[in-house]
C-alpha cells in the first residue's frame, strides 16, 4: 500500500464524512431543540435530491449551466426548508403536548406519504442529475486520480459546521436556541416566543436535509430508496455524536467516514453492520455519545399522568375479550381468518413492547429483534433439525431470551433516546447477520416451508391454537404487571432515583423486564412464522419495529388492551388498503397522521380518558347536589 493510496483513501473517507455530517446536522439540531425524533429526515433528504433534479434541469437551461446549477441547489435547500416549516405548522405543533413518541409516529406517517408521492410526481425511474459545473473530472494526487467534486464535498462539511457554530454562538437567535436546548421551560418563562423558535429550527434542519440531498445529486441519481437508505445512518451519526450536539455529529461523521474507508479494505463484507458496531461500541464507553450531555429530564415524566386501564381490566373481563376473539372468525373465509390470526400475533408482539415501554419506561426502536429471532428460531428448528411445531415453538422464546439477556445488560445501563438507539443498533446487527449468513438463514431469500402439521393446517384451528397461547401469555403479562414486580417496575419508570434510594436495584428490574418482553415477542415471532410459512430478514428490520411502536401508540401506551386495538387497527388498515390500491403507503401514512392527530392518547387511551372525564363530571354533580 503506497502513501498515495492511503492519502487518497483518507480523502475519500473525509468526503463521505462530509455527506454524513450534512444529513446528521439537521437531524441533531431538530432533536436538540424540539426533542422530535424525526423519521422523516430521510424523506426531506430524498425530496432535496428530486427537487434539485428538477430545479437544476430547468435553471441550467435559463441561467447557463454554472449559475443555474448552484442557484438550483440553493433554491432546493430553501424549498425543502419550507416543507419542514409546513410540517411543523400543520402536523408537529399539534403534537408537542402529546407523548413524545407520537411525533415520531407522525413523522413515520410522513415517510410513507412521501414514498408514494415521489414516484407520483417524478415517475419511478432513477433520475441521474448533472455533474457539478466547475467540479467535473479529477485531479491527480501522488499518482491516484481523485474526483474534484469529492474535494469540494470535503470542504463543504467544515464550512457548514463553522457556519452553524457562528449561527449558534454569535447571533441572538442562536443563543436562544441553545438556551431552549438546555431548558425549555425557563426560556418560555422569559417570554420568548417558543413557537417561532421551534419553527425556525425546523426550517433550518429541513434546509440542511434538503442541501444534503441536493449536493448528493452529482454523485447519485435521485431514487425512491434514498430515504430508507440514509435514515439509519443519519441516526447513527447523530447518536454517536450525542443527540443535539452539532460538533459531536461532525466528529462522529469523521469517525464513521474514515473507519468505513479503511474498514472495507480489510473486511469487504462488513459494510452492512459496520456503523452499528461502531455505535454500540461508542455507546458502551460513552452512554450519551461523544459530546452529548446527560439527560437531566426523566424521559417518561410527561406521560406518567397518562390514562391507563389497569383498574378497569379484571380477569373476568379478559376472559370476555378472549371469548369475543373466539367468536370473531366464525363464518369467515380463510383469508379473513388469516388476517385475524395476524392481528393476534402482532397484538402479542405489541403487548410485549408495551410491557417494556408503557410499564417499564424503556423505549425500544428495535423490538423486531426479538420477534424476528423467535421467528428465525422456529424456522431454523424446522429447517435444520426437522423439529415439529411443539419443539420449534418451544425454541422460539428461548433464543430471544438469550439475546434479551445480552442486549438488556447493555441497554438497561442507559436511558431515553440513547437506550432506544442502542436497541436499534442491536436489531440492525441481527438483521445484518440474518441478511448475510446465507448458509444458515438463507440470506435475504429467507427460509421457507415452515408450515404447521396437518392437524393445525386448517386456518381456523390454527387461529384457535394461536388464540389460546396468546391468551395465556397475555394473562401472564397481566398478572406480572399487577404483581409486586410490576408495581416496582412502574415505580422505576416514574422515579428511578427515588426507587434506587429505597434500596431497589433498578437495573436488575429493567433487565428482568427486558427478558420478559423479549421472550413474549419471541413466541409471537414463532407463531408468525408458522402462520406465514416463510420468513425473511424483513421481520428483523426497522419497519417492523416501527409497526410495533405504531400499534402500541395507536392503541394507547400504558394500557393493557391498547396493543390489541392498535394491532387490529394497523393490520386491518394495511390489509384493506393493500387490496384496494397500490398506493397503499400514501393511505397508510395519511391514516397514521389522522389517528395521531385525532387520538393523541391512542384509541384505548382516548376512550379511558372520556370515561375518566365523565366520571369526574358525575362526581362533581353529586357533590354539588349533596
Amino acid at each position, binding site marked *: 500500500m503506497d502513501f498515495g*493510496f492511503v492519502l487518497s483513501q483518507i480523502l*475519500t*473517507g473525509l468526503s*463521505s464524512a462530509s455527506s454524513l455530517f450534512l444529513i446528521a446536522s439537521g437531524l441533531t439540531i431538530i432533536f436538540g431543540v424540539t426533542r422530535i425524533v424525526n423519521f422523516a429526515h430521510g424523506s426531506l433528504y430524498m425530496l432535496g435530491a428530486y427537487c434539485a433534479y428538477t430545479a437544476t434541469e430547468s435553471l441550467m437551461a435559463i441561467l447557463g449551466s454554472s449559475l443555474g446549477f448552484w442557484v438550483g441547489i440553493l433554491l432546493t435547500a430553501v424549498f425543502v426548508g419550507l416543507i419542514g416549516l409546513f410540517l411543523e405548522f400543520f402536523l408537529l405543533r399539534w403534537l408537542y403536548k*402529546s407523548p413524545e413518541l407520537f411525533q415520531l409516529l407522525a413523522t413515520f406517517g410522513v415517510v410513507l406519504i412521501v414514498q*408514494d408521492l415521489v*414516484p407520483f410526481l417524478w415517475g419511478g*425511474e*432513477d*433520475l*441521474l442529475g448533472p455533474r457539478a459545473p466547475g467540479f467535473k*473530472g*479529477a485531479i491527480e494526487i501522488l499518482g*491516484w*486520480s481523485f*474526483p474534484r467534486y*469529492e474535494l469540494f464535498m470535503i470542504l463543504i462539511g467544515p464550512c457548514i459546521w463553522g457556519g452553524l457554530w457562528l449561527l449558534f454562538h454569535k447571533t441572538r437567535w442562536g443563543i436562544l436556541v441553545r438556551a431552549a436546548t438546555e431548558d425549555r421551560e425557563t426560556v418560555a418563562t422569559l417570554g420568548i416566543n417558543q413557537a417561532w423558535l421551534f419553527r425556525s429550527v425546523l426550517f433550518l434542519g429541513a434546509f440542511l436535509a434538503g442541501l444534503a440531498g441536493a449536493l448528493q445529486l*452529482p*454523485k*447519485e441519481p435521485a431514487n*425512491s*430508496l*434514498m430515504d430508507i*437508505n440514509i435514515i439509519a445512518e443519519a441516526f447513527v451519526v447523530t447518536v454517536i455524536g450525542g443527540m443535539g450536539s452539532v460538533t459531536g455529529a461532525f466528529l462522529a461523521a469523521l469517525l464513521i467516514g474514515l473507519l*468505513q*474507508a479503511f474498514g*472495507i*479494505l480489510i473486511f*469487504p463484507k462488513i*459494510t*452492512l453492520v459496520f456503523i452499528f458496531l461502531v455505535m454500540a461500541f461508542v455507546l458502551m464507553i460513552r452512554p450519551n455519545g461523544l459530546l452529548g450531555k446527560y439527560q437531566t429530564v426523566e424521559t417518561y415524566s410527561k406521560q406518567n399522568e397518562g390514562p391507563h386501564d389497569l383498574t378497569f381490566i379484571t380477569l373476568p373481563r379478559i376472559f370476555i375479550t378472549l371469548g369475543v376473539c373466539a367468536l370473531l372468525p366464525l363464518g*369467515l*373465509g*380463510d*383469508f*379473513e381468518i*388469516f*388476517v385475524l390470526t*395476524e392481528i393476534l400475533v402482532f397484538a402479542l408482539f405489541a403487548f410485549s413492547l408495551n410491557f417494556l415501554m408503557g410499564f417499564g419506561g424503556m423505549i425500544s426502536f428495535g423490538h423486531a429483534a426479538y420477534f424476528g429471532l423467535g421467528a428465525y428460531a422456529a424456522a431454523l428448528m424446522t429447517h435444520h433439525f426437522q423439529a415439529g411445531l411443539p419443539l420449534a415453538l418451544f425454541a422460539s422464546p428461548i433464543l430471544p431470551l438469550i439475546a434479551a439477556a445480552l442486549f438488556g445488560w447493555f441497554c438497561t445501563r442507559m436511558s431515553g433516546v440513547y437506550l432506544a438507539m442502542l436497541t436499534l443498533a442491536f436489531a440492525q446487527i441481527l438483521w445484518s447477520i440474518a441478511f448475510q449468513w446465507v448458509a444458515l438463514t*438463507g440470506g*435475504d*431469500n*429467507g427460509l421457507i416451508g415452515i408450515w404447521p402439521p396437518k392437524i393445525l*393446517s386448517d386456518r381456523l384451528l390454527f387461529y384457535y391454537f394461536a388464540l389460546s397461547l396468546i391468551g395465556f401469555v397475555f394473562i401472564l403479562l397481566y398478572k406480572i404487571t399487577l404483581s409486586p414486580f410490576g408495581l416496582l417496575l412502574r415505580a422505576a419508570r416514574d422515579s428511578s432515583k427515588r426507587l434506587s434510594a429505597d434500596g431497589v436495584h433498578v437495573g436488575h428490574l429493567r433487565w428482568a423486564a427486558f427478558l420478559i418482553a423479549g421472550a413474549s415477542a419471541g413466541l409471537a415471532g414463532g407463531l408468525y412464522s408458522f402462520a*406465514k*410459512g*416463510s*420468513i*425473511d430478514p*424483513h421481520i428483523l428490520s426497522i419497519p417492523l419495529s416501527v409497526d410495533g411502536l405504531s400499534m402500541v401508540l395507536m392503541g394507547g401506551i400504558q394500557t393493557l388492551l391498547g396493543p390489541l386495538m392498535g394491532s387490529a387497527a394497523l393490520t386491518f388498515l394495511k*390489509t*384493506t388498503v*393493500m*387490496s*384496494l390500491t*397500490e398506493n397503499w*403507503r400514501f393511505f397508510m401514512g395519511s391514516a397514521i397522521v389522522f389517528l395521531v392527530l385525532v387520538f393523541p*392518547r391512542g384509541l384505548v387511551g382516548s376512550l379511558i380518558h*372520556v370515561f375518566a*372525564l365523565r366520571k369526574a363530571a358525575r362526581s362533581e354533580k353529586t357533590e354539588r347536589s349533596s
Partner: protein
Amino acid sequence: MYKFSSAHVAALLVAVSVLWAVVFSVHHAAADDLKLGDLNSYSRFPTFTEPYRKGWKLKLEEINQAGGLLGKKLDVETRDDGANTSDAVRVAEELVSRENVKLLFGTMLSNTGLALADFAQQKEIIFIAAEPLSDALTLEKGNQFTFRVRPSTYTQTAMLVDVAKKLGKKRWAIVAPNYEYGQSAAKAFKALVTEHMPDAEIVAEQYPALGKIDAGATVQALLLEKPDAIFNVLFGGDLAKFLREGEDRTLFKDREVVSLLTGEPEWIDSFKEEAPVGWLVTGYPWHEIQDPAHKAFQEAYQNRWDEKPHLGSLVGYITLSIIAEAIEKAGSLETEAMISALKDLELETPIGKILVRKEDHQATMGAWVGRTKIQNGLGVMSDWHYAPAEDYMISAEDAAKKRPAP
C-alpha cells in the same frame, strides 16, 4: 387541555364499520370465469414492474379480443406484493381464498418469489414466477407447482463468462451488492472462471451494501489490486454512483468490464449519456431485433402504451403467453391438468420457440449479450447476439438431481 368528544368515537365507529363492510362483504368471484392472480412489487420497484404489467396486459387484451380461452373470458386480478415475503403471502392468500383465483403469477424479488413458491405448494395451486432470478427457485427449493420464466442468475452469468473467456484477461475483480443475488452471481462467476479460464485468478472482491455503496472507497479498493478486468453485479443507484466515481478515478480506463443485467433498458436508460461504453453486458436490444415476431410485438406494445418495450414488458407478455398456451392444452384451469400441460410445453413467442422444461420447470427464455454504446443520448447494446438459454443453463439431468424429491 385536549378535550375528547363523542364525535371522535362516532368518527371511529363509522370508519371501522365502513372498512369492515368494504373488506369482508364484497366477494367479487364469479365461479365460472378463468381468473388468475398477479402480484409484483409495483409500488416499490415501478421501473421494472410497470413495463412487466403492461406486457401481460397487452397479451390479456389480445387473448380476450380473440374470444378468450376455452370460450371464456380471461380475467386477471393484480396486486402489490409489498416487496417482502410477509405481505406477499397475505396478498396471495387473499387472491386465492377471497378472489378465488386458480393460478398465481408474477414477482420480481427472489425472496417473494421463493415464499410464494412455497405457499403455492402448501395450497396446491400453480405459481408462475416471472422475474425472480434466484437459482434455488427451480433447483434446491423447486416444487411441482412452481415454474419460472426468466433465465436464472447462473444462466446469465454463464452467458457472460462464455464471452469473457475470449478476452484473455488474467486478473479479475468482482464487485457485487451484498445480498443473495449478488453473492450467488459472484459464486457462479468464480466457479465458471475456474472451469473455463484456468489461468485466470480473482484478485479483488468488493461487496458493498445494497443501496448504500460507498462508491469512492469501493473503487479505490479495486484499483489497489490493479485488475485487468472487472465482473460487475451492481445495478440501479449503486451502479450510477460506482460509474461516476470509477470514471473520475480512471477505474475503467483500459479495463474490460463484464456486467450482469446492465444492458436492460430498465437499468441503462437512467444513466442517459453517461451510460458505460464498451462493457460486456446482458440486456435487451429491443430496437434492433429484426425478427418479425418480435417486430410485431414491439409495434403492438408501442401502439398500445405509447412507449418503448422494456425487458419487463417482454417477460410479462411471455409469462401470460405460457399460461394461455397451457390452459388451451389442458382444457381447464384445474391444477393437475395444468401441471401436466405446463411440463414440456412448447410455444411460439416474440423471441422464438420456448420450452418449459419438465425436469426443473424452467422456461428456456434466453438473454441478449453484447457491448454497450451510446446512441442518441441513451445507452444501448451493439454487437449483440441472442444467447439461447438451452446452451447455458444447468443440464436437465443435473437440475433434476438438485431438486428435492416430489
